[in-house]
């Protein structure tokens, strides 16, 4: 066999059978489940009288609907409560391992999978959630699926799919001060567009990527879906292996050594062919801020809001005009003059310990600006929260005027009570700035944790790459 990409290796290791038209039956190793996209799948299973194929492959957690305050009182919204209770009862009935709301291990599904070592290199990982691409940071083939496919995996441990094309995004060099994995992700999306990766699995490679921590790699792979790619992935190396050692679901003893030997083969071979290659120079990437209602509507913090009149493509121009109306912004306005009302530090993109440390370092000894009505920090899991508290990060945030909350998806998608009011403008470390995403009429600017914390302190965007 010739030189293979990482994606080729992961794909080939999971093909159960292949149809004449190229559709393959792919075996799934890990199935993560949350309360929003699973009830109809469990119901379908029940109606058809089917069983779970491999119960031990499933790890379940409620994250989208859970409150981030007053958890001891339970969930006030009866519809949300029913959905979480439905997950609890389905998991109890089928014997599925679930971290319940008040378990310290509870958190955002894409934070807890890696944290527990439930995501391992070489695995196929699926979840009824588009940000499943996150787990590709561990040299896993990980992608989001719909509820029908959730049911399909529950019943058969397999999925029917066609192989995607392979794209390599190579980033070389050292990142500048205040520039993070989030900025790489936004810069890539700005370059190729939100549909640039459609039909592809993206592998992130290059010296910049190799120097990222696992947290940074997860941030980057998390946002692959915002570039249109169902899967993002990064080769396994010492950073990957060191992160996993000793985690509860990771292999131990002789099995660990055997696993590590296999994991070290999970990289693209020299000379492997990609269908597309994109190159970025890390030194050219500045802190990014989105200005519109799609993650591709992004500029560097020292830039200006674009002028739709200068856009030649009619569909793009109309899209930009609509976005500026929705966002309440004027063309050519400097990004650093945009004032904010709220700040959200959290989500499956940026709610890990490294993210909280970075935001706390900016907030330490300062206070949020008078025009900032609410700045909230929502840790990605109970264990992240515990770790942050051991490091005193909670005190730094609270002293600076931030609210310190319980873990969950929170205001990334505003399914619970954490949301923007119409017209409110938010600096957010989440992944989507769609209309209404953080609350009806809410205006979202996607940024890194450092940029969000700095905006909270200043009351407007500031360039964290300059002193």
């Amino acid at each position, binding site marked *: 066999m010739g030189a293979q990409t990482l994606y080729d290796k992961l794909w080939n290791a999971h093909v159960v059978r292949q149809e004449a038209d190229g*559709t393959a039956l792919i*075996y799934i190793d890990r199935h993560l489940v949350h309360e929003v*996209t699973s009830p*109809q799948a469990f119901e379908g299973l029940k109606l058809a009288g089917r069983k779970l194929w491999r119960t031990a492959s499933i790890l379940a957690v409620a994250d989208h609907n859970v409150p981030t305050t007053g958890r001891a009182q339970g969930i006030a*919204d009866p519809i949300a409560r029913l959905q979480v209770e439905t997950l609890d009862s389905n998991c109890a009935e089928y014997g599925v391992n679930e971290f319940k709301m008040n378990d310290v291990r509870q958190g955002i599904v894409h934070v807890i999978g890696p944290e527990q070592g439930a995501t*391992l290199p070489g695995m196929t990982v699926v979840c009824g959630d588009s940000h499943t691409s996150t787990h590709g940071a561990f040299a896993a083939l990980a992608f*989001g699926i719909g509820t029908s496919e959730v049911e399909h995996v529950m019943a058969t441990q397999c999925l029917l799919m066609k192989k995607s094309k392979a794209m390599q995004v190579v980033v070389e060099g050292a990142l500048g001060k205040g520039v993070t994995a989030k900025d790489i992700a936004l810069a890539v999306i700005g370059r190729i567009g939100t549909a640039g990766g459609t*039909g592809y699995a993206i592998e992130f490679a290059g010296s910049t990527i190799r120097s990222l921590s696992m947290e940074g790699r997860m941030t980057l792979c998390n946002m692959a879906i915002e570039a249109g790619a169902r899967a993002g992935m990064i080769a396994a190396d010492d950073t990957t292996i060191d992160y996993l050692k000793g985690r509860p679901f990771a292999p131990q003893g002789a*099995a660990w050594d055997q696993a590590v030997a296999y994991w070290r083969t999970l990289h693209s071979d020299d000379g492997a062919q990609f269908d597309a290659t994109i190159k970025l120079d890390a030194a050219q990437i500045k802190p990014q801020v989105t200005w519109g209602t799609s993650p591709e509507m992004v500029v560097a913090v020292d830039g200006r809001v674009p002028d739709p009149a200068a856009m030649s493509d009619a569909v793009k121009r109309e*899209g930009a005009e609509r976005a500026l109306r929705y966002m309440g912004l004027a063309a050519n306005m400097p990004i650093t003059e945009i004032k904010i009302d709220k700040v959200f530090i959290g989500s499956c993109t940026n709610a890990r310990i490294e993210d909280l440390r970075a935001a706390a370092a900016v907030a330490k000894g300062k206070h949020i600006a008078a025009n900032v009505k609410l700045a909230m920090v929502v840790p990605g899991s109970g264990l992240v929260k515990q770790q942050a508290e051991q490091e005193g990060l909670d005190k730094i945030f609270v002293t600076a005027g931030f609210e310190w909350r319980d873990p969950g998806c929170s205001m990334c998608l505003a399914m619970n009570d954490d949301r923007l009011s119409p017209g409110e403008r938010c600096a957010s470390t989440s992944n989507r700035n769609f209309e209404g995403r953080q609350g009806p009429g809410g205006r979202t600017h996607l940024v890194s944790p450092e940029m969000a914390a700095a905006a909270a302190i200043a009351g407007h965007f500031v360039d964290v790459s300059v002193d």
Partner: protein
Amino acid sequence: MNKFTLLNGLVAPLDRANVDTDAIIPKQFLKSIKRSGFGPNAFDEWRYLDHGEPGMDNSKRILNPDFVLNQPRYQGAQILLARENFGCGSSREHAPWALEDYGFRAIIAPSFADIFFNNCFKNGLLPIRLDAEKVDALFKAVEATPGYRLKVDLERQSISAPDGTVYKFEVEAFRKHCLLNGLDDIGLTLQHVDEIKAFEAKHRAAQPWL
């Protein structure tokens, strides 16, 4: 799943790119544990002037007269004409459920987001990719012609316009077969139980830590 064979349907145009699944069905409706009943809340934030929540009587809400699907000429539309990257964002299958429940059976666009595209086929909804120029021509024709209908023939993989133009489209053989016959994927996969078991045994022997 509903079969899809032939469709002669009224066309409604949604002239904006990057329509995301949050727009197709906002998050508050995702709290439902059912897979039906999402149609009245399809495009909720664009479609109504008031804010929608689960459990509201949608027939009493105020429609946004500027939203294209609220125009009388597009009532009863079964084909949605859309722009680039339709269905991007969240994997929520509630989006195709909402579109199907609203009455759509086919969506024509230059491109679709992968997960949404995949989810459509599981729900008897046919997503059709056509070149941007052809989609553009269809937008012009729809807007100029009240009552504009298209005939979609999945077997022949063709769309026939009233002026006699025929647009051919691509669809993967396996998906086409499932849609034409209304087949349940799980039932099909379970025909291969022995192969899955054999694969699983080999896979777990090679990677016993899994």
